[in-house]
C-alpha cells in the first residue's frame, strides 16, 4: 500500500513537471531570438508563395526533404504490398501465416 502511494505521488510529480514545461512552451515568449525564425516570419510568404508558414517551410525551403519523404512512403507501400501479396505461396504456407497473425 505504501509503494502504491509512492507511485501515485511520483505520477503526480511527473504530470506537474510536464504541465509546467508545456506551459512554458505555450506562452509564446521563448526568450531566445533566432535569426531564421525572424526571416521566415518576415519573408516566408513572399519567397515561397504559401500563406501558411508551415507549408512554406515543408514545400518551399525544405521541398527536397519532402521529396525524400514521399519516396520513403512509396517504398514502404511497395514493400508492404510485396509482403502482403496473396496466393504467392502454397495453401499450407498461408495457413501458417494466418496462425502466426492469430497468435499476435
Amino acid at each position, binding site marked *: 500500500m505504501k509503494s502504491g502511494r509512492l507511485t501515485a505521488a511520483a505520477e503526480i510529480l511527473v504530470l506537474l513537471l510536464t504541465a509546467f514545461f508545456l506551459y512554458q512552451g505555450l506562452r509564446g515568449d521563448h526568450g531566445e531570438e533566432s535569426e531564421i525564425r525572424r526571416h521566415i516570419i518576415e519573408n516566408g510568404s513572399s*519567397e515561397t508563395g504559401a500563406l501558411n508558414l508551415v507549408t512554406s517551410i515543408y514545400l518551399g525551403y525544405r521541398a*527536397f526533404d519532402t521529396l525524400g519523404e514521399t519516396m520513403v512512403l512509396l517504398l514502404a507501400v511497395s514493400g508492404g504490398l510485396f509482403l502482403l501479396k*496473396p496466393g504467392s505461396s502454397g495453401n499450407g504456407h498461408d495457413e501458417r501465416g494466418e496462425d502466426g497473425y*492469430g497468435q499476435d
Partner: protein
Amino acid sequence: MDRTDTGRAGMNRKTTILDLISRKLAPFMLLFGLYVLTYGHASPGGGFQGGVVIASGVILLFVAQGVEAAERLFPFATLSRVETMAFLAFIGAGLAGIAAGIGFLGNPMVLVEVSAAPRAGMVLLLNLVIGIEVGSGVSLICLRLFREE
C-alpha cells in the same frame, strides 16, 4: 482461420444503418480531403493530412460496402498506377523550378506579380500530388489487407 470466417459472416450481416451512413458519408469525406489538400497553402492542412483523410473515406467504403463493391470504384491496378504517377509528377513538377532559374522544386510563380491565390501555384500542385499519393498508398495497403482470397 476463425477471424476470416467471422469477417465474412460480418460482411453478410451488413446492417441498413451501416450501409446508408457509409454511402452518405464517404463522398463528404473525400470532399473534405480534397478541401484540406487544396487549401493546405493558406490554412492548416496539406498533402499528407489531406491524403490520409481521402484514404479514410476510401477505407470506409471498403469496410462498409465490402471489398468487391468498393473495388469497382477504386480498382487495385488503377490505385497503384495513380500512386506511381503521382510520385513521377512530383519530380516532374520540380523541374519547373529549374526552368525558371530558381532551383529544383522552386516556385516559379513568385517571380510573377500576381495575387495571393495563384502565387501559391507550385505549393498547391505539390500538395495535390502528395495528397493523391498518400491517399492511394494507404488505400492500397488497406485494400490488400481487407481482400480475402
